[in-house]
């Protein structure tokens, strides 16, 4: 499974980790809804580290689409909230 960490690159993550990733993702959504900033930051780091530690970085000249894109490593809770409403982080 190809996973992108924005501003860092793409990782090849073994499929076995998809459940773990989904689990953290669900908790992250919860933290955003509760506006629990410490929990949000902790979970975001957990999610990024899961991919960084268990995946292998793709060679830079490889051109493939990701199956998943993680949030930016420096995303704030407020930005994450905005991602769920309106047009998101990238207005046209």
């Amino acid at each position: 499974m190809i996973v992108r960490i924005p501003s860092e690159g793409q990782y090849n993550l073994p499929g076995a980790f998809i459940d773990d990733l989904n689990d953290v993702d669900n908790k992250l959504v919860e933290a955003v809804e509760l506006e629990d900033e410490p929990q949000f930051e902790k979970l975001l780091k957990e999610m990024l580290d899961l991919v960084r530690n268990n995946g292998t970085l793709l060679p830079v000249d490889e051109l493939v689409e990701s199956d998943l894109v993680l949030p930016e490593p420096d995303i704030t809770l407020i930005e994450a909230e905005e991602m769920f409403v309106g047009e998101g982080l990238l207005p046209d």
Partner: protein
Amino acid sequence: MGVLSRMSTIVKSKMNRLLDSAENPNEQLDYAYDEQRKMLQNVKRGIVEMVTAKRRLQLQAEKVKTNIATVDNQARQALAAGREDLARMALQRKQAAMIELDGLDAQITQLEGEQEKLTQSEQRLAQKVEAFKSKKEIIKAQYSAAQAQVRIGSALNGLSEEMGDVQLSVERAEAKTETMRAKAGAIDELADLGVLDDVSGTSSDPLSKELAELTASQNVEDELAALRAGLPPADDKRALPGG
């Protein structure tokens, strides 16, 4: 919808228009390549903007440092003249200026981080663009239009995503710089309007005036003392009066 799927959609949708805009695969390939080159220019411009903004903040920090030295000196002179009230006010200004300096330093560090990140993005994209260029020529030379359509799909999607990522970084960096610029501009404007005290002491408020007068009279006293001691008023302090 989870953060992951939402984020994936955002980054991927950024460049999807690219795929629809050209008629045949060869055209699509060339068009995509042109777009990537433009994107690289975009990133380079973003980096230049970042450097300019940083330079501006550095100049502002220099100015504040000079002001700190000035009010510090004023405080000493005020105290020497027995004006503790004035010295206290000067030190209050010094404190305010030091808080401002801390803020500026933090912003400069943040901009340096953004600049570093963008530079890395630029290098990564440049390598991707080169990889795409060779792939494009191979596909053009070896495959019929229908075959090429299949071959380029994946590479083009991968590249579009990379560009979406870089575009996101540039936009975020620019938004951060814009916020800092607005903040710095607001401080300048308030100082111009006299809402904030100009810590350099050049404004015409009573404290600055008094401190300036004190400094001036202190300078006069110093020179007088120097004259009395038979010294030239210049700062040639080695020429101590002979006994």
